[in-house]
């Protein structure tokens, strides 16, 4: 059996096993889910080992005819390149962590919870590996459902509103993409991305523009870019911790990945022409998210808005359309997954103890929970792009890319976006101050227990990567560089043609 198929559907194994466990045996179910996700991680590592980082092309391809109707063909086509492997690894790493983090937080309907989680993993991995647009769309939409349930069943008080909002927004965007996918399939009677790439150049310019927009709206909502972001705070606030981790860590990346994988490759001309507009939206998102983060009292909401800001960097980077921007953008996807994922974990840990996320209910926690304080500090610093930690490498590359971008053509993009770095410090440090510094003002907080071993285990892998990418990101750049350079070269050729 093909390796990529195995990776994608390995969670099914766990699902099948869990289905036959009685729902009272929560502990067993948790272990099965955890082991399954670790198995997926192991398989992903195997993919990583088989992957040839010097090759810019798609590798380990699986291509099986799937639906064949008289005049056209849909194939089950998977593949991995330097860009998707990073996100594959991110997903594979974050899922076990998320499962582990919900060990005690989720006590109701553990069986269903774990089922949905493993289903979600299938969807996410599938999105990053699928090469046939039809297949991609299926995974894309499919990933919605488990997340919808995770928010709606195990979420906070307004979970239903948030879940529906999440579902409707994402679906509204993606269904336009479906039309664009259909359009693309008309000509060649297939939906295979590698084959479409060869013919897409012949699409008339104005149609390219429309197709680009149809894809872009789907991805922009998912990312989310301003002004399509308003589902995100609600979804994050109401989602259970693990859901938030996955949502921020992986699901948002699906949008950004979509931009890289489809918008930039299929419609290079449109991408080049619209790049300044996308960049403007991205920058508005950066500043806007940062300002709104600052106004929040709820920690999770703060982190949610910070996601909008951070994902703005990701989008800005890719539409800088140069090596620095695109590579930084891809790295930043991973970075954001690690840092924001970790932040959500941290918020979740304290929520589990105190059942509130209102920052005014805290203060002086550092004294009571020193380990928690230090870990949060590190993650916070990573999130605000302190040099030496992962966030800086990504954001610096992106800003450099935006600044030097010939396609954007103005220093203003990079310059204004860099202001986001200042604002990030403002809201993140404010949060840190309100929660961890100052005297302990609430008596309930005095008896809080510091992180336990399980919780620390959740964070350690993330912290390792936070430091690793911050200090020695070279392996990561090496992994994606050939693929990214191939992409950028094609785009720059398009830029030459457009200008």
């Amino acid at each position: 059996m093909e390796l990529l198929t195995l990776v994608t559907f390995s969670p099914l194994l766990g699902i099948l096993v869990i289905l036959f466990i009685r729902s009272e045996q929560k502990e067993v179910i948790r272990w099965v889910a955890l082991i399954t996700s670790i198995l997926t991680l192991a398989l992903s590592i195997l993919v990583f080992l088989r992957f040839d980082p010097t090759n810019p092309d798609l590798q380990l391809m699986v291509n099986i005819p799937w639906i064949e109707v008289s005049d056209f063909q849909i194939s089950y086509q998977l593949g991995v390149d330097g860009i998707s492997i990073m996100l594959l690894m991110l997903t594979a790493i974050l899922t076990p962590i998320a499962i582990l983090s919900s060990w005690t937080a989720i006590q109701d309907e553990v069986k269903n919870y774990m089922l949905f989680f493993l289903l979600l993993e299938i969807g996410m991995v599938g999105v990053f590996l699928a090469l046939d647009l039809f297949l991609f769309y299926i995974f894309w939409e499919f990933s919605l459902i488990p997340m919808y349930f995770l928010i709606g069943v195990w979420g906070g008080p307004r979970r239903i509103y948030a879940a529906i909002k999440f579902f409707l927004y994402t679906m509204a965007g993606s269904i336009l993409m479906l039309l664009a996918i259909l359009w693309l399939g008309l000509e060649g009677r297939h939906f295979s991305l590698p084959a479409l790439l060869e013919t897409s150049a012949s699409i008339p310019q104005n149609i390219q523009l429309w197709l680009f927009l149809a894809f872009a709206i789907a991805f922009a909502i998912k990312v989310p870019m301003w002004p399509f972001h308003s589902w995100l705070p609600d979804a994050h606030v109401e989602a259970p911790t693990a859901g938030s981790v996955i949502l921020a860590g992986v699901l948002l990346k699906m949008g950004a990945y979509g931009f890289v994988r489809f918008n930039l490759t299929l419609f290079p001309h449109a991408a080049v022409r619209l790049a300044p507009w996308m960049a403007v939206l991205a920058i508005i998102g950066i500043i806007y998210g940062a300002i709104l983060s600052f106004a929040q009292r709820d920690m999770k909401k703060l982190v949610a808005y910070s996601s909008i800001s951070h994902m703005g960097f990701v989008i800005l980077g890719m539409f800088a359309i140069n090596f620095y921007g695109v590579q930084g953008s891809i790295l930043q996807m991973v970075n954001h997954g690690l840092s924001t994922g970790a932040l959500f974990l941290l918020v979740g840990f304290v929520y589990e103890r105190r059942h509130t996320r209102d920052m005014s209910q805290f203060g002086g926690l550092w004294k009571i929970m020193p380990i928690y304080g230090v870990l949060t500090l590190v993650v916070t610093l990573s999130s605000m792009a302190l040099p030496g930690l992962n966030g800086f490498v990504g954001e610096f590359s992106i800003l450099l890319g935006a600044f030097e971008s010939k396609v954007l053509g103005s220093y203003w993009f990079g310059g204004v976006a860099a202001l986001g770095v200042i604002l990030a410090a403002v809201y993140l440090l404010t949060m840190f101050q309100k929660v961890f510094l100052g005297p302990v003002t609430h008596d309930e907080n005095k008896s809080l227990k510091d992180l336990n071993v399980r919780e620390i285990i959740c964070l350690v892998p993330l912290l390792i990567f936070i430091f690793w990418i911050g200090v020695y990101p070279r392996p990561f750049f090496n992994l994606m560089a050939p693929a990214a350079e191939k992409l950028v070269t094609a785009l720059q050729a398009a830029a030459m043609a457009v200008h």
Partner: protein
Amino acid sequence: MRPPRQEDSSFLGLLINIIFGRRLGERFVSLVACSAVGLAFLVAVLQFLALQGHPEGATVHIAEWITIADLSVPWALKIDTLSATMMLMVTGVSTLIHIYAVGYMHEDVRFQGDPGRYPRFFIYFNLFVAAMMILVSADNYLMMFVGWEGVGLCSYLLIGFWYEKGEDGIGNAIAGKKAFVTNRIGDFGFLVAMFLIFGAVGSLQFEDVFHWAETNGLANVGVITAITLFLLLGATGKSAQLPLYVWLPDAMAGPTPVSALIHAATMVTAGIYMIARSAPLYSVADTSSYVAALIGAVTAFYAATIAVGQFDIKKVLAYSTISQLGYMLAAVGIGAYVAGMFHLVTHAFFKALLFLSSGSVIQGIEHGHHDSEHGHAGGEPFDPQDMRNMGGLRTRMPITFWVYLIGALALSGIPPLAGFFSKDEILADASLENTIVYILLAAAAFLTAFYMGRQILMVFFGKQRSEAAKHARENRPVMTVPLMILAGLAFVGGGLNLPGIHSLTSWLEHTIAHIHVTEFNVMVSVVSVALALLAIGAAWLLYGRVTMAKGDRDPLRSILGPIFIGMENKWWVDELYSALILNPYKRLSRALVVGEGEENEGSEFWEHFVHEIVIGKGYRALAEFMDLTVDLGFIDAFFNSMAGVTAWIAQRLRKLQSGYVRNYALSVFVGVVLILGYFIITAR
């Protein structure tokens, strides 16, 4: 040459302390921390010696860091005379302050009531030294930026070291945040400068950049001016210059060793170092240099005026630091890089000395307060840093007094102490290069001497104005010995670059091109010494004499400032001839304090009103406005209202579904008529 890396040792100490600190107790922690820094100093000395043979320096490549296309930034260390100077200074002063801190923090954690936090202090301290080493030994701008932000982080952590203390329990934490955020504004400048550099040069390596500046500089003056101006913005943040100086006074919330090491001797000089490092760029961009000089000079003068009005012993020193940094910036601005670096080093000695001594004073007072409290139940809030609670400490703390005096005189520029030489070199340069700068600096020099005189007089002379002062006692040798060493350095530090010998100049010449040697200017020296003496005399007239004469003085005297003086006829004559000049100054400094008549140090107009209220509150209000009105009220509401409109239509449609068959039939009929109508139109 074996690659010597100071970071190794401080990182090692850091790691050991992080891992074992909690279990192994203060003794071990302090030992590890001090020996780590000491080792770093040793390595720095070895490097210094090695450089004697190879003054052109060397670059140590450790690893690749960020490599994207033609952007290649390594982790690499640059060892040359400039960085070696900084390393020596930093590690040297650090070692002394570490040792001092062993004693100081031992007491401090007990006063503040959390002995468990002792190891954490040294972790931060070591981290700071490591970051500072990265900063000074970086061989490219980006790596320098790593250290640059790293020291900022440590500064943040150390200012907020007693994060549950301060105003409303949160004051220290807020001060830390303020420092970090203000620095970030500077860092923004630094970032943009880097982008511009990369855009122009295609590299961030110092070597490449400077080479480019030398070969293509004249053709790219515009770009270089932009680059240097943005770098200058970075420097004003880190080195607390106008308009970003505001964080530094608040940063005094950190423990005194922190103020001494980070906020006086080392970190704040990073901006000066960076500009000195970027000399090849600045020497091309005349405009930027001019702006830098002007900012430096204005800051020097401005901060000095404020220092005159302060009562907090550390605040005076803080403003003094800002003022002195202004000197250095002015120096590098007018092209006197060596003079700037020279003053940087000597300032490190005597300002560290002053801060540490003030810490000694504070702790002495705290001891006194503690002792005097025995037998008294409770006690009103007591500020051990308020100079009005001091007085007459000369006798209670003799060692501290003497070293403090040396530091103060050095700062005031009294020969033959270190400050005299370094400051004079700047003034001499300024007198040649830029008259406005010279006048501002000279005026600042006068004020410097005045406020230092005022401080000495208020703290060490006169009567003990509080019980605490009466019970104050001298500290342990672990604190006083470093003070004495520093005092010695402050005394002889001028020897580094004596007029006529210029050892530092020739040393730095290997690294910084375009150095011009400024010869000793007798005229300038005489004027500045005269000004200093005059100022000290004035201070003595104001404070020294009155204190002694009046004895038990109302501590609220200065609340009313000049008005009070006006009411008190006793000194009217005394004040008249000496305060003719002083009153406007005092008024000026007081005018910058929010809330006339209220002694609220540290809440100057600029930083309190503009920064806290206009910017801080305004930003918060903006954020909340955007959150509630724009995001929820507009964007969210827009999308929600689409759902709302749909639901509304749904209700309308529901009404249409009336249940009456005839209505339904009518609906069918409407369809019929419409379709037939359409067909008729089509068929025609």
